[in-house]
């Protein structure tokens, strides 16, 4: 298990460096006249030169990348081009918000999906139809549409939850709950649908496995076999879908945060994109990729804990 963990961690680190290099290369090469972008207003050629000098944009590309990388490993993404704050100052508080939302959504979606998916696989009928329907709607209706309808209904028509903004949990737990409920609901739907379908499928598969019959032939009740053996074996595929959904949710949160005006990564990504704030965009890409890689690592480790065979592969 230790060996497995170390291998995966090493793999993750290599992947991070590769992602960073790729992103850096494409973004900085593509960005064009950076100094002009930053100085905007009435920049003179002298000012532009000076800024290029200052930002090191006239140094060789590899040197620039290594400088950036040496900062990035200390989680320092440098100065933003569009805001007075450094990229870190803006990025990390926002990362916290987005991660809170996405993690909570993952948790909510996972719990509901496991319950619904299992019931659908075992009992079929009504619950199964609900899961099928959810699967369809959750997959097909874009999250931002769901978000908008939720706001209209539950924040404006019936003002139960907050329509906009975000309050930290530490600041005011009930406000936090009110601010986070609708975004989480909007985001959760599609993940919930996908995971529930996967759980339904893998529980159905697992329940038809030979060892289920054998265990029952040894006198274990159906429920016991389902809750102990079937769910554990069905857990692996469900987990990996959850991982995929997590990545999707990170993206989906961009739109949902925009609609709920939540100070997460989403609005930062949109505004940085609009003004081509390359350091910010770079930081965003790297940090979200890091989150994805870490989450995948966690999922790998969980899968390995669930299924000993994985540890060998």
């Amino acid at each position, binding site marked *: 298990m230790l060996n497995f963990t170390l291998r995966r961690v090493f793999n993750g680190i290599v992947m991070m460096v590769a992602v960073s290099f790729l992103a850096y290369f494409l973004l900085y090469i593509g960005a064009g006249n950076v100094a*002009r*972008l930053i*100085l*905007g*207003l*009435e*920049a003179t050629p002298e000012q532009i030169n000076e800024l290029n000098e200052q930002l090191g944009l006239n140094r060789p590309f590899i040197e620039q990348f290594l400088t950036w990388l040496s900062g990035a490993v200390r989680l320092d993404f440098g100065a933003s081009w*569009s*805001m*007075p*704050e450094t990229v870190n*100052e*803006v990025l990390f*508080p*926002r990362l916290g*918000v987005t991660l809170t939302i996405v993690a909570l959504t993952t948790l909510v979606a996972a719990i509901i999906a496991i319950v619904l998916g299992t019931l659908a696989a075992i009992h079929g009928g009504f619950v199964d139809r609900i899961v099928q329907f959810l699967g369809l709607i959750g997959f097909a209706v874009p999250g931002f549409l769901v978000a*908008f309808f939720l*706001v209209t209904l539950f*924040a*404006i*028509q*019936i*003002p*139960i*939850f*907050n*329509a*906009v*903004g975000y309050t*930290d949990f530490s*600041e*005011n*737990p*009930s*406000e936090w*709950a*009110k601010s986070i409920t609708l975004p989480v609901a909007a985001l959760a739907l599609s993940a919930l649908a996908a995971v529930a379908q996967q759980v339904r499928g893998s529980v159905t598969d697992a329940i038809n496995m030979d060892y289920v019959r054998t265990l029952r032939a040894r006198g274990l009740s159906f429920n016991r076999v389902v809750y102990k053996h079937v769910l554990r074996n069905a857990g692996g595929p469900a987990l990996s879908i959850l991982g995929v959904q997590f990545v999707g949710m990170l993206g989906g949160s961009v739109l949902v945060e*925009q*609609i*709920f*005006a*939540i*100070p997460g990564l989403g*609005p*930062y990504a949109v*505004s940085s*994109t*609009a*003004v*081509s*704030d390359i350091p910010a965009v770079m930081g965003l890409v790297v940090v979200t990729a890091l989150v994805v890689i870490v989450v995948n690592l966690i999922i790998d480790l969980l899968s390995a804990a669930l299924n000993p065979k994985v540890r060998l592969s």
Partner: protein
Amino acid sequence: MKSFKALAAVAIAAALAMGSVTGAGAAGKTLSLGAIAKPVSLAADQAEYGNRAWFYQAVYDSLLVKAEDGTLKAGLATKWSYNALQTQLTLTIRTGVKFTDGTALNAAAVVKNIIANRDKNGPTANYLASVKQVVADGNNVILGLKAADPALLDYLANTAGTVGAPSNIGKASAATSPIGSGPYILDKAKTRAGSKYVYTANPNYWNKANRKYDALVISIYEDTTAMTNALKSGAIQGGNVTTTTVNTLKAAGLKMASGYVDAKGIYFSSRSGSKSCISDVNVRRAINTAFDRAAMLQSLDNGFGKVTTQYFSTASKGYDTAFDKKYAYSIDAAKALMAKSSFPNGCTITMPTFAPYFGEAVYSIIKAQLGKIGVTVKEIEETGGTFISNILGGKYDAYLMQFERAGNSWQFLNFMITKGATFNTDNYEEATVTKLIADFAKASAAKQPAILKAINTELVNNAWFCPWYALQSNFAYKGIVVKSAQAGNIIPFLYNIK
């Protein structure tokens, strides 16, 4: 359905009640406002007015302040006076005021600030271009001017008079850690740069009587719908809203403070030389004639505005109602003007589009209307950062914009008309206008109106611009007191919100 709603509301409210008990009341009296743009820098010498005014007014005091109607009032300067030639301004600085870093505010500090505001390349720099030298004289600050500047006091009540702690001037950290003497202190820990700016009360503020709230939160809503939802749901008490949401917000019980600050329309930027057909006055006149201003106002902004052909605001002495009859919509007339021009077969002009702000509908209208008179629009899509810089860099022949129409005519002239004015990007000149402006600077107050009228006549006749209408600005609010729209600014100044 109704009972279901009620039931759901009760159920969920009950579920949340536990949390509410512990959470409520902690906030005290907080003023929550929504802004549509985030600040670029919070340093005093980078202060901006317009939509970003609050971020600076929260932390910094200004030498002068402006009432809702534009009347200048004492700020950090308790008295002000010009010499006879209008070339020397003396300000008396308030005593007993301290910056939040504990240092005292005095004449020397003000001098440093004015110099920084002029020299640090900030948005205010242009407004202090006329200031030759600044010196402290005891409790007074004396500004020596290159030439008379009829708008200077106005500038000082805007951002040019912003005063921050001298220790902070020139520091990079000033951009995110402002230190002033104003009513509030920025709470950096709770602030989410770009989204939410949280302020706590300055315990040593000199003018506590005028500060009605213990805390201030300014949230950024770049999205119209988010702003509307925030207002509707009561998340904020006030914010600038677009014309398309005015009706729904009124229906939701919000009040509006409405003014006519901006003029929306097409602005030209290649009138000089001959590289573009915009340099032909008849083409410019034709463009002016090619829009049904009333219909545009109705369709684009729900009719919230006043049709006009002139850029001077109604508050200006140069404004003439009669001009608004000029350039009545007629495609035939516009075609005739085109025929008269050097481009009888039409021409192509380059214009930027900035859909994130203006929406894309208006651009399709411009393209269609100009197409009808043979002017082909080559659109270049802008999404943000480079929009203004490309305009200033002279990349385009014309552009859609809504410009603030300063009540102060001198300010306007220096903003749009004079050679070297910020938005006279190709330094276009007409001899008559140049002479009239020179006259105006020297003229007595009595003679100024006539000169302004003459200038306006030239501008309108020669179609310097193509304004469509004065756009109504709408500050929607609920639960706070706003006397009226702010003269000369799109949102009420922070100290005027009660």
